[in-house]
């Protein structure tokens, strides 16, 4: 299936070697942590077979049941709030003309560049004053704000290129603006919204610094933090560490394997546009 006729078989061969080598290097750390997770935990355990008891141990002893539940709570909150708010904001920027729209949009765009490291320390001390540290508000809040910055930009890009004829038809049929957005435009925008959902889910699930700072007592310790905490206790028990690490990574990896094109589209196009 050579696209250009004059590519020699030698070159095609080189291509396969490059592909293979690259794939091996990419997979090596992943395969080794999987081997660690499913391997025997110490010499007293019979070698061979899949040692699923490592996962049971990590889940119960390492309190990963609690950590995973915290992660679900935080991720669902961040995804739902930021998508529900980004879609109308992006719709307004993408389809309506109004005073101040340009600089207001740039203000949102600016947020994509601001590193967490710059805002987290003052935010922690201000929220502590308000007795909000160790709550969902403190852990989810900054992540909602960051996701809104990206989400508004992402949805604006989509709605700018979306078909307006259908909106005008709906208005002639007597639909109110809110109905036009949620009943007419949003269903058509599903691929763009789904991309936004999977990206925000991934960022929130994998986030480390924000829950570390915002939940100092560990009441809202999310899965990645649980792993860091676990490492402090079981640093030499590689099987347990592996099982815990695989557990933490699994939800996003599974979603990625099923919704791969949304991930790649979002992370590459989101930056190019």
């Amino acid at each position: 299936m050579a696209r250009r006729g004059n590519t020699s078989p030698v070159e095609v061969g080189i291509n396969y070697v490059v592909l293979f080598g690259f794939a091996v290097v990419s997979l090596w750390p992943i395969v080794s942590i999987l081997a660690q997770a499913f391997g025997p935990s110490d010499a007293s355990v019979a070698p061979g077979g899949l040692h699923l008891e490592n996962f049971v141990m990590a889940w119960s002893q390492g309190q990963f049941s609690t950590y995973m539940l915290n992660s679900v709570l935080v991720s669902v909150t961040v995804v739902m709030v930021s998508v529900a708010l980004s879609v109308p904001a992006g719709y307004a920027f993408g389809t309506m003309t109004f005073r101040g729209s340009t600089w207001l949009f740039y203000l949102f765009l600016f947020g994509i560049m601001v590193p967490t490291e710059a805002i987290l320390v003052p935010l922690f001390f201000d929220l502590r004053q308000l007795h909000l540290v160790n709550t969902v508000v403190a852990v989810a809040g900054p992540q909602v704000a960051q996701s809104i910055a990206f989400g508004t930009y992402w949805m604006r890009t989509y709605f700018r290129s979306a078909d307006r004829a259908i909106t005008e038809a709906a208005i002639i049929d007597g639909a109110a603006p809110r109905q036009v957005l949620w009943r007419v435009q949003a269903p058509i925008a599903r691929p763009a919204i789904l991309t936004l959902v999977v990206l925000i889910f991934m960022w929130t699930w994998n986030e480390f610094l924000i829950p570390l700072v915002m939940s100092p007592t560990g009441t809202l310790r999310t899965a990645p933090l649980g792993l860091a905490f676990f490492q402090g206790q079981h640093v030499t028990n590689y099987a347990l560490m592996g099982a815990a690490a695989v557990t933490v990574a699994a939800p996003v990896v599974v979603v990625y394997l099923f919704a791969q094109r949304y991930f790649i589209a979002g992370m590459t196009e989101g930056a190019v546009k």
Partner: protein
Amino acid sequence: MATSSRAEPRPSRLARQRRASREGRSAATPYLYIAPAFLLYAAFLLFPLVRAAQFSLYAWDTVSPAKFVGFGNYVKMFNDPDLLGSFGHSAILILFYAVLPICLGLVVAAILNRAQVRGLGFFRTVIFLPQVIAMVVVAVAWTRLYSTDGSINALLRILGLGDLARAWLGDYTFALPAVGLIGTWVETGLVTILLLAGMGRTSRDLYEAARLDGAGPVAEFFAITLPAVRGEIVVAATLTVVAALKNFDVIYMTTRGGPGTSTAVPSYQVYNQAFGLGQVGMATTIGVTLALLIFGINLVLNRLGDQAVED
């Protein structure tokens, strides 16, 4: 009807109102759509950023009252070899997170672009995988690979280079490059996919013409492929340079800035100054400097990107 108002470059207030009422909305509608998003965004991002700038002008240890010091923290930071050194470490990490992946990605993408091979879909899935795995998990995996009895040392022993084997992350000289290579591993896939997409958009006719002129693969790469993906290179550079500067999780999980301060980076210093040493003013000073650095890099790279598109 719609086209006439869209053709106006800056619609007058009257035109705006007319258009708004035609779409069944009042002039306030766009603001109402934006307001909820803006309120949360302002409360949790813009406001803390302003507070950060304010905090950075004070010396505060969280116990005694804050003392105004003007730009004292900034002066102190630039005169502290450890803090200044952490920015230097970031510069080295940029080589590993950005420069090396872009060079590797260019070579691999150019090779793959010349002839289509089967299995490219599977390949894309695999090389992009490091991007979606939590950095904490990536760090756990690599800590094991780098350990004294890990597979990197095992590989060296097999190759007869056993003398080089060491605890990589505990070594004053090699800990920083070792952390950097984790970044190379994470970013190369993303960069390759970005570049492949860019090369895929390049006109086939250009290559045909070059081949008729007798250009070999190398000449073809420098004459056609490289100029065609300048825009993608800028995007890849922006993403990866920023990733190199915001690598708190990897440092926290692998070395905590050690041994000594050999892998301390600004991102880690912010956390350590605030919550380890109780130097909140200095922590925010480093945070603000990091933000300014990221704005500057974005600005410069954006300019380059615009030039690449114009040419």
